[in-house]
C-alpha cells in the first residue's frame, strides 16, 4: 500500500503532510502526558519490541488475487495492544524508516502513507473495536471487524488519494478505489484472523501487556472480558 514518489499531485502531497503532521504531533503529546513515570522504561521496551515485530512481519509477503502479494500491516493489533496514540507512533517509526532506508514509499508520499497506514489503519480499528464491543460484547468479533475495516478503509483512503491525483496517477477514483478496496479486502481478512486470534490470546495469557491500552487495559474491561 506504500505510495511511491510521482503518483500523487502536489496538492494531495501537501494536504496529507499537513494532516499527518498534526495527528502524529497530537499523538506524541498524548503519549507525553499519559505515561506513569515508573512504567516508562518498560513501556518504551514493550513499544520498541512490538514495533520491531510488526516491522519484521511486514517483510513477509503472501500471494493474494490476480498474481499480487500482500503483507500484514499490524495497525489494528498495535492499536489494541498499545492504544491508538502509541500505535500511531509505532507505525510512524516503521513507515519513516521504510521510506528513508529502503525507498518503500516515496518521500513526497510520506504524508499520504502516514495518513493511510499510521492514522486510518490505526485509529479506525480502535473506534470500530469499541463500537462493536459495546453492541455485541464479542471480543473476537470486535477485533476481527476492527482489523478488517481498518485495513480496507486504509486501502480506500489510498485509492481516493491516488484517484484525486489524476491525471498524474492515470486512473481516476472509479478505478483506483475499487481496485485498492478489492485486493485489500483479502489482506483485511488475513489481518482480521491474526488480530482476532492474537488479542484474545494476549488477554488470557498476558493481560498485563495490555495495560497501555485505555480501552483494553482500562475501565475494568479486562475483568469483564475474562468473566465471560
Amino acid at each position, binding site marked *: *500500500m*506504500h505510495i*511511491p*514518489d*510521482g*503518483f500523487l499531485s502536489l496538492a494531495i502531497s501537501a494536504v496529507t503532510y499537513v494532516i499527518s503532521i498534526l495527528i502524529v504531533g497530537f499523538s*506524541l503529546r498524548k*503519549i*507525553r*502526558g499519559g*505515561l506513569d*513515570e515508573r*512504567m*516508562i522504561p*518498560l*513501556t*518504551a*521496551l*514493550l*513499544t*520498541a*519490541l512490538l*514495533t*520491531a*515485530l510488526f*516491522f*519484521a*512481519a511486514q*517483510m*513477509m*509477503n503472501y500471494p493474494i488475487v*490476480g*498474481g*499480487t*502479494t*500482500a*503483507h500484514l500491516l499490524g495497525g489494528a493489533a498495535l492499536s489494541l495492544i498499545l492504544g491508538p496514540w*502509541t500505535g500511531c*507512533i509505532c507505525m510512524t*517509526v516503521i513507515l519513516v*524508516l521504510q*521510506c*528513508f*532506508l*529502503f*525507498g518503500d514509499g*516515496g*518521500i513526497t508520499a510520506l504524508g499520504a502513507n502516514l495518513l493511510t497506514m499510521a492514522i486510518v489503519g490505526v485509529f479506525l480499528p480502535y473506534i470500530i473495536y469499541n463500537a462493536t464491543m459495546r453492541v455485541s460484547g464479542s471480543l473476537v468479533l470486535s477485533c476481527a471487524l476492527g482489523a478488517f475495516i481498518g485495513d480496507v478503509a486504509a486501502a480506500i483512503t489510498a485509492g481516493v488519494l*491516488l484517484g484525486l491525483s489524476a491525471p498524474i*496517477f*492515470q*486512473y481516476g477514483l472509479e478505478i*483506483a478505489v475499487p*481496485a*485498492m478496496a478489492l*485486493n485489500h479486502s483479502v489482506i483485511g481478512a488475513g489481518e482480521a484472523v491474526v488480530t482476532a486470534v492474537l488479542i484474545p490470546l494476549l488477554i488470557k495469557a*498476558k493481560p*498485563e*501487556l495490555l495495560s*497501555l491500552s485505555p480501552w483494553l487495559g482500562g475501565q475494568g474491561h479486562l475483568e469483564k472480558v475474562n468473566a465471560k
Partner: protein
Amino acid sequence: MKAFMTNRNIAVGLVAAALFVTLGTYVFGYSMETLDVKAEHLGMEAKSLFPSPFPEYIVPGLESDVANLLLGLISTLVVFGVAWVVLKTLSRRGVKASGV
C-alpha cells in the same frame, strides 16, 4: 507489564522478529502489491526522489539471500532502537514538563 518485560521475553520477541525476517527472505520474499500491478499496467514507474541506501530491501552490489537476511535483521534492530529512543525521549520530556 513488569512481570512480562523480562530479558528472556524481550529475547523471545526479538527471536520471533528474526524468524519473520528469515521467512520474509527465504519463503515469502516475492512482492508485487496491487499498486505495483496497477502502475505496471499504466506504464508508470515508481520514481524515488530521495536515493535510499537499500532500495527494495537489498544491499546494492551484494544481492544474495544472506546479505538480504542480514540487512533485515539489522534493520529490525534499528527499528527497535529508534522506537525505544523515541518513547524514552518523549516520556522523559513529558515527565519534566508535567513537573513530576
